[in-house]
């Protein structure tokens, strides 16, 4: 069976549809991020990030995206934003930091863009 025959996703600019393909690709990465709900897991990670990546079986692209804290790369590697938010939280990055990074803006410029959407 070819899953592509069921692909009715019209491409949407700047948006990755987190579907079965992405969910399979990012499973290890998202599973690691899900573990960060627990405070002890966050401490274990911080003590030795590389060992923690291996424990969850991250591939090299996922590891590098984590090392770089690069959100677009994390998404390309199968990350889901809800789980990635827990990874970002370890580094005290909020959703505006994450938005600014992905759009190549300063945080202030990103916040201004949000404010302008209300005009």
């Amino acid at each position: 069976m070819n899953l592509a025959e069921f692909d009715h996703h019209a491409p949407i600019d700047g948006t990755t549809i987190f579907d079965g393909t992405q969910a399979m690709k990012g499973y290890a990465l998202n599973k690691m991020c899900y573990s960060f709900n627990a405070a002890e897991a966050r401490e274990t990670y911080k003590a030795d990030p590389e060992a923690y990546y291996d424990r969850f079986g991250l591939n090299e692209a996922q590891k590098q995206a984590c090392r770089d804290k690069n959100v677009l790369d994390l998404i390309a590697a199968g990350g889901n934003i809800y789980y990635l938010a827990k990874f970002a939280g370890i580094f005290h990055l909020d959703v505006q930091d994450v938005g600014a990074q992905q759009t190549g803006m300063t945080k202030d410029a990103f916040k201004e863009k949000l404010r302008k959407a209300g005009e």
Partner: protein
Amino acid sequence: MATIIGGLTSSHIPAVGNAIAKGLQDDPYWKPFFDGYPPIRDWLGDHKPDVAINIYNDHGLGFFLDKMPTFAIGAAHEYRNEDEGWGIPQLPPFPGDPKLSWHIIESMVAQEFDITSCQELAVDHGFTVPMQLFWPGAPNNPDMPRVVPISANTVQHPIPTLKRALDFGKALRRALLSYPEDIKVVILGTGGLSHQLDGTRAGFINKDFDQYCMEKIVTAPEELTKITRMELVEKAGAQGTEFLMWMMMRGALGDKVTPIHANYHIPISNTGAGTMMLECAA
């Protein structure tokens, strides 16, 4: 028989929980948002519902991708709020109503909604933030209703269609109206409105579309079922798909509702924040 007295909608942004914890309600950034709630609290104070059905979407606390229920219904004596990864202090557990939960579960499956029942379910900000907004101090508010959480999947596609969400609400209505006890029920639909957190389109907010949805959800929810899921992602943003919770809520209210109060404000965090109070015909 249970009586459905009305429906409430609210955004459930984590930053709101933080603002409540810090007492920022009168801060100029937050005030236009928090001002949307006192009229609804007054209404709740007058009507004192016994039960709140809280329709929300889990964000990776109660469920993971290993097993992802499309629709899940809580069937527990209480629901714990747990650390979501940010180390924010947790709220005490919320009291459940397992007898009502199982009645709903029986009825939904009889109506061919094959849901997942949950005897344990950790509830995240999607559930707790609206509770805090509607019942300050929740769950330690003297008027705190018992709760039945219902979570729909918006984490991973395929997500339910807007029609399925509305139909779920209609089935939930039938389930409640067949409950033998005389209780007053309020239905919450939480999440949205437009926002996108991920990708180069992060920060996308669509005021026109949000306002269209807030209008049609009152008068013509069936019209909204024509929106495809991909169209919803395109127009409401990748996480704006949480509007499905509003559709589920709306289905449970019956054909005619009276809008008592509405508020809309941009931005709260990365989101167009919408709040509504819809009263059911007595």
